[in-house]
């Protein structure tokens, strides 16, 4: 009933306002003194001629645009005294009264001052990569995550093709600039995600829980990020979910390893979407790798619900709820004598619930409000023979942010507060009949932050922020300043610098043994250069990161709380280069190249000495290419990745982390074919990872105790999924628009 009334009101509204149009006061005086011929020049602040300036007499049509030498000339029949106006985008408007007396009038040169850079047009690039449709400066588009070969529609895998990351094939997570996986924090619509990855056991790389099609933008910061983000020593991934789903449709995905079904309904200001998916790799491994020791091939069952409602032109209420359940059991080679014959059995069951609700609206005087609540609940049970571990974790985070983008013309303001409650419990048995060990902890953490983007001049923009946190569990507070500067050199070039202090709670596996620890700390320094045109992006960055107060414990007695202390430290430094060219050098090829050079050492956790950590490679290269066969409606995509040898500890030799793995190499290919199936837009997708079948090994796993000869037995560490082929048929049934891949189901 509301909807049909709207056009009615609008129709009458239009008539009403037309009738009520106010009368304009200014009236041009008729020519009394004869025409005046005006002539002059407009210069910029540095005295250079300024072309394109609109110079005119206010309240008349008379004026001219300056030429390439900054000159203008025009004739007016107006007389009396009128304001002479000079306007040009990017410069402050100038007005001065001018008496028109007829005849020739040569004006002295006028100077226009550059206006301060308008906020929002400059994004400080130091440390950050963005995937976005909305910002011109984005290095990636959201669709890139889906169409990058080897990513298999996994967000973290796609981000692994950017510089600053090391591929750690046996884990599959993001390792950024010499940081461990736990040092990267994931945010969904500003709220931290408790458990971004699904459960993983040794040799089964983890995958992210969220489908990339849910997001309209992804921000990946490899350091120096905003005060808005805390609890991350190394990196932040910010995911922005779609607002209203664009249209009603049904999505059917048939995969060689499972399938999913999604139904979306769109009303005028509301959309709802429900989906279910099931994956089972048993038939696939039965077919491709009968020799592999899967006791129970990976299985996943999941579902999600998404609601979005536009409460006002600037108001949006969103709810996203998801459930996932996962089981896997594998037998893997093990150095212990007991498992030599049939391998060691490891089972995993993971169950996860996550709810994310956000509300944003405009308030008065340019303020806007962003509120959110995230609830997470997870049960993760792992049984590496003969042990049994069951982790239970519940977290709740509430967040409130106030932003004022029009605080002044040259700065904005953002203030926020965040409260987190977390409960973690472990139940552990060393063997089936051993006593149960049940450590656990409860944390309450509050954080406040303030940040401002400041336009210092036409070319210099700064972002200054401060974040304070208090942890009840650690009984400690911290204060983290952050600062970033961007200097626009013109011609698409920017030099930027960022730095700051970053704190993080010790990870759950440490706190459960010894909760009386302190924050771990990192300090970042980043210097960045970027050159960008509409088709090309070149980015080069230097960084240095210092770690302090990292937690260490006794390698040979991990359950001794007394040995846990914030006594570790380390550093990481290096250079990252990124180059992307979209259809410029080669007409139909979109490609990017990433190179990261990393030098890092640290002593933390169970490390015996300061050394290069096992998850850092000195040289990392990714080359991603996409070729579009327009006539065939076919996109071919390839990714080549190289990681130089990584360190691992060989107890049979002197030294620590002294042994080196072989290099990591992988070539991944995918093909996407766009077509219509029975009138419905359809994508046929074929993807294969590690096409060349390279046997990547990730070091050696050693027995806990040496044999009689004093030698530690070992087996090589491999991924249980060294190569993977997937075929998919993605159909979207949709009455209105016949095809649009950006809303294709995954």
């Amino acid at each position: 009933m509301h909807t049909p009334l709207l056009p009615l009101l609008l129709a009458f509204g239009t008539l009403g306002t037309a009738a009520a149009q106010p009368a304009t006061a200014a009236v041009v005086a008729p020519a009394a003194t004869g025409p005046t011929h005006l002539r002059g020049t407009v210069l910029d602040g540095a005295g250079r001629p300024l072309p394109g300036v609109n110079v005119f007499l206010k309240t008349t049509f008379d004026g001219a645009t300056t030429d390439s030498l900054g000159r203008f000339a025009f004739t007016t029949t107006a007389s009396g005294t009128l304001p002479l106006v000079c306007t040009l985008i990017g410069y402050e408007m100038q007005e001065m009264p001018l008496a028109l007396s007829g005849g020739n009038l040569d004006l002295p040169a006028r100077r226009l001052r550059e206006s301060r850079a308008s906020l929002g047009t400059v994004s400080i690039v130091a440390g950050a990569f963005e995937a976005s449709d909305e910002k011109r400066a984005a290095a990636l588009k959201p669709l890139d995550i889906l169409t990058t070969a080897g990513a298999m529609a996994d967000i973290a895998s796609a981000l692994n093709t950017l510089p600053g990351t090391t591929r750690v094939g046996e884990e599959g997570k993001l390792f950024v600039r010499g940081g461990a996986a736990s040092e990267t924090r994931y945010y969904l619509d500003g709220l931290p995600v408790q458990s971004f990855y699904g459960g993983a056991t040794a040799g089964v790389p983890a995958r992210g829980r969220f489908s990339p099609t849910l997001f309209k933008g992804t921000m990946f910061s490899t350091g120096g990020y905003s005060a808005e983000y805390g609890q991350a020593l190394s990196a932040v991934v910010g995911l922005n979910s779609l607002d209203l789903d664009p249209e009603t449709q049904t999505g059917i995905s048939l995969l060689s390893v499972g399938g999913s079904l999604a139904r979306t309904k769109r009303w005028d200001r509301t959309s709802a979407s429900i989906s279910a998916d099931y994956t089972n790799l048993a038939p696939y491994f039965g077919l491709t790798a009968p020799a592999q020791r899967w006791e129970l091939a990976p299985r996943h069952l999941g579902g999600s619900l998404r609601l979005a409602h536009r409460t006002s032109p600037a108001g949006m209420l969103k709810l996203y709820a998801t459930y996932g359940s996962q089981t896997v059991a594998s037998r893997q080679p093990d150095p212990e004598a007991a498992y030599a014959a049939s391998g060691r059995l490891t089972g995993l069951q993971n169950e996860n619930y996550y709810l994310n609700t956000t509300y944003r609206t405009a308030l008065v005087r340019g303020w806007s409000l962003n509120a959110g609540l995230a609830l997470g609940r997870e049960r993760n049970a792992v049984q590496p023979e003969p042990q049994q571990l069951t982790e239970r974790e519940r977290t709740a985070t509430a967040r409130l942010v106030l932003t004022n983008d029009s605080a002044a013309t040259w700065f904005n303001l953002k203030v926020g507060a965040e409260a987190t409650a977390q409960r973690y419990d472990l139940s552990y048995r060393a063997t089936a009949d051993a006593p149960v060990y049940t450590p656990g902890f409860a944390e309450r953490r509050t954080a406040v932050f303030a940040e401002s983007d400041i336009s210092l001049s036409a070319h210099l923009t700064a972002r200054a922020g401060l974040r304070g946190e208090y942890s009840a569990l650690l009984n400690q507070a911290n204060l983290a300043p952050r600062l970033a500067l961007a200097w626009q050199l013109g011609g698409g070039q920017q030099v930027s610098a960022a730095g700051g202090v970053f704190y993080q709670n010790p990870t759950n596996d440490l706190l459960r043994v010894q909760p009386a620890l302190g924050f771990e700390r990192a300090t970042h320094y980043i210097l960045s250069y970027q050159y960008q045109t509409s088709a090309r992006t070149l980015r080069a960055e230097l960084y240095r990161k210092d770690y302090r107060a990292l937690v260490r414990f006794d390698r040979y007695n991990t359950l001794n709380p007394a040995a846990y202390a914030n006594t570790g430290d380390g550093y990481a430094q290096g250079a990252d280069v990124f180059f992307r060219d979209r259809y410029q050098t080669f007409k139909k090829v979109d490609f990017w190249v990433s190179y990261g050079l990393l030098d890092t050492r640290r002593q933390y956790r169970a490390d015996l000495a300061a050394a290069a950590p096992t998850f850092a490679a000195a040289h990392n290269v990714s080359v991603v290419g996409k070729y579009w066969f327009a006539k065939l409606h076919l996109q071919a995509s390839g990714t080549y990745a190289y990681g130089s040898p990584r360190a691992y500890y060989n107890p049979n030799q002197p030294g620590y982390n002294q042994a080196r793995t072989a290099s990591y190499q992988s070539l991944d290919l995918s093909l996407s074919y766009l077509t219509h199936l029975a009138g419905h837009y359809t994508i046929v997708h074929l993807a294969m990872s590690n096409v060349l079948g390279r046997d990547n090994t990730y070091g050696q796993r050693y027995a806990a105790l040496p044999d009689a000869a004093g030698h530690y037995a070992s087996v090589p560490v491999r991924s249980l999924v060294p190569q993977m082929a997937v075929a998919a048929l993605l159909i979207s049934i949709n009455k209105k628009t016949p095809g649009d891949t950006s809303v294709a189901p995954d």
Partner: protein
Amino acid sequence: MKKSFFTLALAALSLAAAAQTTPAASVPKTAAAAPAGYADLLGATIKEVMSTGDAAELKALAAKMERAATVAPADWLPRYYQAYALLINVFQSKEDGDAKDATLDQAEAALAKARQLKGDESELLTLQAYIYQARLGVSPMLRSMKYSRLVTETVAQAKALNPANPRPYLVGANNVYYTPSVFGGGAEAAKPLYEEAKAKFAAFKPASALVPSWGERQLLGRLKQYEVATATK
């Protein structure tokens, strides 16, 4: 109940549309609100905008429209034509993508001012849709998906506000025309839409010499192309 409201709304709309096509409805107001000679000068400038395809000249005319806006700050038309001239400049210019985007930013800024002045919303939305089409044209490979949808949505809003306005029909037809056939577009798919636009143009009488009335020439040119294509087959 719902349905009767809808019919009522439609009836009201067509009344409103009819009222708008009566010349008496808006012309004298514009003239009365602005200084003497304003309407003539604006009319002459509009004529210049409509009769040139020269990129530099269009830029200069956009500047002139900006000046006109200072003569009658409450009139939305100079801002509308400023945006229009900048938009057509983008279609005609040989500049690179970044420069075109910058010009389209200016066009959108002018359009926003016209909206603040409560101009004819259906016309303003049509121009917005046209600007989206120009954005798409700057980089079709990267932008088709997003902007093609925006054009469709905005054109639909413009049609809903004034079903008698022929211009959203033209812009909508162009959008289909330039969409690859695999996505449901192409010349054949667009033809009936052009025919529909033609009927709308035939029935449309601008309320004055100043309000938007462009598009018919472009449409007839396109339809001529179809005839030539059929003849040469």
